[in-house]
C-alpha cells in the first residue's frame, strides 16, 4: 500500500462513497482542516488540493476533462495527474496530489503521515502517486 513513495508512509482515511462522485465531476472533502477535491474520470479517482492557489476557488466545482480540472472562478487549469498548472507560467504554484483507492465502494485518501503543515508544493513524485491511484481504481463504479 505504500509503494508509491520511497520515504513517506501514508495513512489511509475513508472519505466517503465512491458512488457519490459522479463521473467527470468532483466533490470536496475536508480532512484535518484541509480541503481536498476528489474527482472521478474514466481513469478512476483523483484527489488534489481543493482550493485554487489563484484566488481560492472551489476546484471541486470545476469542469473536468481527461486529465484536468478548470477552476470555476477564473479558469485556472490544473493537471489531475501532476497537480501542475496547465497553460500558466513556470513559477505558478502546483496542487498537491493525493493517492486515492476504492475499497468496498469507499473512497480511501492517502495522507502522508507528516501531514502538517500542508503546503502547496508537491513533495513526492506526484505523477507516481496518481498512477498508483489509477492502477488501484476499479474500472466501473456506475
Amino acid at each position, binding site marked *: 500500500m505504500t509503494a508509491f513513495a520511497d520515504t513517506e508512509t501514508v495513512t489511509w482515511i475513508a*472519505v466517503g462513497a465512491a*458512488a457519490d462522485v*459522479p463521473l467527470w465531476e468532483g*466533490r*470536496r472533502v475536508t480532512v484535518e482542516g484541509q480541503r481536498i477535491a476528489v474527482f472521478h474520470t474514466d481513469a478512476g479517482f483523483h484527489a488534489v488540493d481543493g482550493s485554487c492557489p489563484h484566488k481560492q476557488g*472551489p476546484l471541486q466545482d470545476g*469542469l473536468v476533462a481527461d486529465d*484536468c480540472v478548470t477552476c470555476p*472562478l477564473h479558469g485556472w*487549469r490544473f493537471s489531475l495527474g501532476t497537480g501542475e498548472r496547465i497553460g500558466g507560467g513556470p513559477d505558478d504554484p502546483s496542487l498537491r496530489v493525493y493517492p486515492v483507492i476504492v475499497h468496498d465502494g469507499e473512497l480511501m485518501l492517502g495522507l502522508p503521515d507528516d501531514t502538517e503543515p500542508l503546503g502547496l508544493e508537491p513533495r513526492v513524485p506526484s505523477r507516481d502517486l496518481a498512477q498508483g491511484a489509477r492502477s488501484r481504481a476499479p474500472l466501473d463504479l456506475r
Partner: protein
Amino acid sequence: MTSILVIGGGIAGQAVVEELRRRDAQVPLTLVCGEQAAPYDRVRLSHLLAGEADASELQLRPDAWYDDRGVELLLGTTVTALDPDHGTATLDDGRVIAFEQAAITTGSDALMPPLPGLDLPGVHAFRDPADCAAITSAAAAGVKRAAVIGGGLLGLEAAYGLVQRGVEVTVVHLVDRLMERQLDAAAGALLLPAIEALGVEVLLEHATAELLPGDDGRVAGMRFASGAELPADLVVVSIGIRSRTDLARAAGLDVNRGVVVDDRLRTSHPRVVSVGECAEHRGIVHGIVAPIHEQAAVAADTLLGLTGPAYEGSVPTAKLKVMGIDLVTAGAATGPREVINADGDSYRKVIVDADGRAIGAVLVGDTRGHELLTDVVKRAKEVEDPLALLVEASAATAEDLPDDAQVCNCNGVCKGEILDAVRVDGCASSREVMARTRAGTGCGSCKELVLDLVALATGGADEEPAYLCPCAKQTREQLVAAVRDGELSSVSELTAACGAGRDCGACKPGLAYVVSEVAASRHREERHARFINDRVHANIQKDGTFSVIPRIRGGVTTPQELRRIADVAERHEVPMVKITGGQRIDLLGIRKEALPRIWEELGMPSGHAYAKSVRTVKTCVGTDFCRFGLGDAIATGIELERRMEGLYTPHKVKAAVSGCPRNCAESYVKDIGVVAIEGGWEIYVGGAAGSSVRRGDLLATVATREDAVAVSLTFLQYYREHGEHLERTHRFVERVGLETIQAAVLDEQSGEPERLRERFAIAKAASDPDPWLERHDPVNPKQFAELDTEPEPFTVIPPAKTPEPVR
C-alpha cells in the same frame, strides 16, 4: 538570487518589467506604482479625453498578469528614499525593502510655466487619467470656452478631446507654428487649417502673461503679454514635461535635466539604471514612447548582467492621434538637403544630411509608407534619390518593410516579431498575434498594418475560424452537423464522435448547448458538461457560495412574495439581499447545501439568473400607472418572459419592454428591447449596456402586442440557431448583419419565420420550466453537497395558491 526593484509604474516601469521577464522568468521583481492602478498606457490619454476609450481599457496588463508572472506589484506606494550603496529603498508607509539592483522609471510631470493664477480652480495639466477626469468633468459641468496653452502634440490632442466634448477651444501657442519641434514652416502651415477645421481656434505667437480669476474665484480667462485678453473657464496647460528626478538626486545620483545614464542605461551608481522620461542620455531626455522600449531592452540586459547591443539614442518619431488629420514625423524637420513632394492637401518631405543619409521625414495629409520612411530615418540609410524614395514609400505595402522595422511604437514590436508570431509560434489570427506580441494594442494607429502583416504571414489565409472546441478544432457548424447527422443526443456521444471536449473540457458547456439546441431540448442532459451554475442552478460567487434569484417576471412582485423572501433571508441570515439591475431580488452568500431548503421556503421558481438563457425582461409601469404610457409594458413584458424563460441560449439574453420611447426600462440597450410607440410597437435587437455599450438596431415596427412578442420570439430562435457559443446578441447582430436577420425573421412569405417559431415552441415545450424542483429529486445524492456534507433537510411546504401579481 538577485532581486530587482522597479520604481515607477508608468509605461517605462512596465517596459522594464516586461523585458526582464522576457529574459528571466525567475528573478524576484517588485514594481512600485505611485498610482492605485497597475501601469496604464498614457499614450492613449487623448482617446480617454475624446471619449473614445475608458480608463480601464488603458491598463497595459490585467491585474492577473502580475500574479501570473510573479511580479510583486505595490500600488499606491512611492519610494521616499533610495540608498544604492546598501541596496535599500524606504517606502512612504515606512517599510524598507532590500534590492540587489534598481531601475528608476519615475517618468515626468507636466511642465508648468511660472504664471500668476496657475493655481486657480479650473486650471489643469494634461498628464494622467486624473487630469483627464478633471477636464472631462469640467466639460460635462457646462464649461463653454477652454484654452489650451501649448500647441505641441499633446496640446493639440487635448484640444481635439475637448472639441469632441462640445467645448469651444482656443489653442494658445508661443511660437509661429504648431508642433514646431516636429514640423517645418510649410508643414505647420498645412496643419493649421486642418486643426482649425476641427473647430479649434489657434492663436500663434501669443505669450500668456497671467491667468485671470472670475467673480467666483475660478479661472475666467487669460491676459497675454500684448495686453489682449481671452475669456476661458477652463485652462489646460500642455507645454512639455519635466523629469521626476527628486528621488535620484537625493540618492546622490548624477542628475542634469534628467537622471544621467550611459549607453547601458546605467546611472552614476552601478546598481541603478534609469529608463524613460526621467532619464537623460547623451544630453537628451526623450518625451515620447518609442525610445522607452529601446531603452528598456538595454536596461534589462544591464540589470541581468547580459551583454547586448548598447543604447545609442533614439530617433524621435511623432504621430498625431487626431481623427481626420494624418501626421507622422521622424527625426529632424529640417536639414542640409530637403526633398519635398507636396500638393494643396498633403506635404511629404525627406531630409538628408551632407553625406546623403536620411535624417528626417515629415508627412502631413498623406502618410502612406510612413513605416518605411521612419525605418530609413532610424537607420540613417544612405538615400541616393530621395524623391524616388518618397514615391516608392507611397506605394509601399506591408511586404516592403524590412523585418526589423518597428511597426508598433507603443509596444516596441517590429515586423519580424509579428511574422514570427505566425510562422514560429503558430498564431493563426490577428487577435492571437496581438495578444502575443502586444502589437497594435497601444494607441492603435498601427493596427491596420498589423492586420496586413498577419495576412501576409498566413499567406492571406482567412482568420482562424471561431472554434467552439479549439482543442479538437471543431466549429459550431461542424458540431451542429455532427449532432444532426449522427442523431446524437448527449455531449458524451459528441465527444466520442469527434473528440471535442475531451482535452481541456472548457468547451463542454458549449457542446451541451449545441446538443440541447439541435435536439430541441430533448437531449440527454449530462451535468458534467455544465458549468457549476447549471449543476446547482445558482450563480457561483468569489467565495464559493451561491446567489439565489427567484423568478419575478417583469420585475412585478407581490407583498406575499416579498414577505416570504424577507422571512427566508432572516431565517438563513443571508449575508446580502440586493436588488439587481434586471429588477430582481438577489440573495447572496448561500452555501450549496442550503440551496434546496431555501428554494423550498421561497416557493418560487428559478429565475435562471445563473444560466446562459433568458435572464430577465425588465418593464416600466407602462399604461398601468404612468401618465405617458402608450402600451401595456407590464403585461407584454410578463408574457414575453413567460414565453422565453427556461430555454438555453448561446449567451445570456436580457430583455426589456418600455411603454413609451422615454425608455424607462432601457429597452434600447437590451438584447431584445420592445418599445411602445403611438399606434404600435418597435422591436430592437442587439443592444448592450455591459462591457460594451450599443444601442440596439430597430428590427421591426409592428401594430400589435401579439406581433411584438411573436417577432421577439422569432428573433430569439434565430439567435439560438445561429449564434456562436458565448456570442452576445450585439456581436451576433454585427456579425450576421441586420438585413440578413430581418430577411429570416420578418419575411412571412418565405415561411421561415413560422418555422422558426415552430422550432422554438417545440424546444420550449421540452425545456425544464423550473430546475429548482430538483430539490425534490436530485440528479445524484450529492448534487447539493460535498462528499462529507449533506444538503440541509427541509419540510416540504404544500404549494400555496400563490396569487398572480396584482395588475
